[in-house]
């Protein structure tokens, strides 16, 4: 097609918009993080409380991703391959976490698992299991907000591959477990990997829900995103930018990994 001025104008508008809204601001965070050379980064890496926050964040994210992957792949298989009453409702409800405010997520968990007045909280604390203001609560909040991500990647792939390969495996003598491990899992592998990468990015970065349920105790339940807020509000902008930079780095890496592996799937 012939190049038209309209095409260049559109291109310019889009590039300009994305530059001003995303590219430039993100670049500035990197620049601010290294405004004093490596000092900011070294500063946070030498602070044991911040290191604790980073480690906690990574631990929580990994647990959340494992839970969401197992649950997500399982529920995707059920949704695509089986028929049961209430399937449509369940399918719609599974998307809820994407559109619920993280603060509401936190509130909802506090109302049920809060140690003092929650529905189940006092009973759980009675048997020595504290959820809110403790790691289990942070994990639950993180699992909640990232819940649909694996499902959303795996369901379309399962629909796309159909079940003929699985039927062929069954007719060749494979049982359900063998069929899943040898045929289904390799076929949905990339979908699962995207889901995991996206969930990991989302889990590392959760802020609002964690803020409500964690209690934000320095050196105990404070996570990396809470550190960013705390540092900024306490006028340690260098520390805030450095921590934000580390988080942004993970996010960017996640997107790049996804965009690199995605086209391969089509081949």
């Amino acid at each position, binding site marked *: 097609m012939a190049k038209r001025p309209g095409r260049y104008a559109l291109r310019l508008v889009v590039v300009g918009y994305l530059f001003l809204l995303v590219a430039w601001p993100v670049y500035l965070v990197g620049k601010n993080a290294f405004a004093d050379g490596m000092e900011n980064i070294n500063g946070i890496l030498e602070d044991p409380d911040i290191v604790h926050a980073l480690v906690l964040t990574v631990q929580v994210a990994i647990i959340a991703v494992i839970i969401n992957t197992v649950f997500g792949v399982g529920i995707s298989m059920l949704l695509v391959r089986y028929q049961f009453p209430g399937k449509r409702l369940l399918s719609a409800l599974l998307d809820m976490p994407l559109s619920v405010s993280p603060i509401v997520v936190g509130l909802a968990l506090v109302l049920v698992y809060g140690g003092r007045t929650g529905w189940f909280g006092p009973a759980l604390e009675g048997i020595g299991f504290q959820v809110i203001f403790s790691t289990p609560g942070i994990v639950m909040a993180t699992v909640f907000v990232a819940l649909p991500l694996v499902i959303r990647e795996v369901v379309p792939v399962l629909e796309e591959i159909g079940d*003929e*390969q699985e*039927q*062929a*495996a*069954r*007719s*060749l*003598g*494979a*049982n359900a477990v*063998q069929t899943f491990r*040898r*045929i289904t899992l*390799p*076929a949905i592998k990339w979908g699962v990997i995207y889901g995991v990468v996206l969930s990991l990015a989302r889990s590392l970065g959760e802020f609002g829900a964690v803020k409500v349920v964690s209690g934000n105790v320095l050196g105990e339940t404070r996570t990396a995103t809470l550190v960013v807020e705390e540092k900024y509000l306490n006028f340690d902008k260098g520390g805030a930018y450095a921590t934000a930079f580390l988080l942004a780095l993970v996010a960017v890496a996640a997107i790049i990994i996804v965009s690199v592996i995605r086209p391969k799937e089509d081949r």
Partner: protein
Amino acid sequence: MSIEIANVTKRFGGFVALDDVSVSIPSGQLTALLGPSGGGKSTLLRIIAGLEQADSGRVTIEGLDATNLPPQKRNVGFVFQHYAAFKHLSVRRNVAFGLEIRKRPKDEVRARVDELLALVHLRQFADRLPSQLSGGQRQRMALARALAVEPTVLLLDEPFGALDAKVRKELRDWLRRLHDEVNVTTVFVTHDQEEALEVADEIVVINEGRVEQIGSPDELYDQPANDFVMRFLGPVTQLGQQLVRPHDLQIHTGTADPAAVTGRITRVTRIGFEIRVEVTTADQIVTVTLTRNEFLSLGVQTGDTVQVQVAEQVHIGAAYPQTLGAA
């Protein structure tokens, strides 16, 4: 009898796919389930394989009641229309799948797979992925995969449906020869009457969830049980009240005769060696097919008045004597 299907009924919601079907499929033969799309033939095949459960009725495979057996316990080979190739496994691993599941020794698997790949002419492609094969090659791989486990019966669901006309014809011949070589009881589903007539020892015609007729290709073609089977197995035209095959009609230019119908040639079409003549009679258009030589020796052309009648040597089954009248 190898496969006994007794009073099988299957519904999908309100749709009746199979309505009290009973069929016996003989051992060692190549049987075709023939019928129009949506007539229930694939459902029947899937019920034999255990991929679908019948609502009622029994399925017996080589004397063993298989009605409630899951597919992996039936020892049937199933070949899908769209190949169902395991995309992430090489051709070799695809064929070896069933044997690996059965935990056969590595050497044995290797030998058996080599043997099968040779049988389906895919030895040089053993290490390719299915995506690097053509449709015909993929289907041959699927066949080898199904045969690897030495199934009691081999079931093929429209095996050539997704292939183009030429490859389809080649594979059809090849399937016939392969069957004569390995001699496993084989059932294949097709909606292509030519395919069924050419390949099968026995044909089961299925329509609207019911068996219309069972018989050898000759029996079905020459002695169709009803109009549906007659229409489905080949071209038909109407002469008066009779349903006949166009190539069973004769044209002559002699004087009117009580066994013949008078008409005028309104159209002549040549398709290769065959000439299709349309004769318009008082109340209908009759199609007659002639060989080119027959047509030339008649010396007629469009606009001529001719007599049309059923050829004398034609045997017409007693199934519909009411239409035989003049013959």
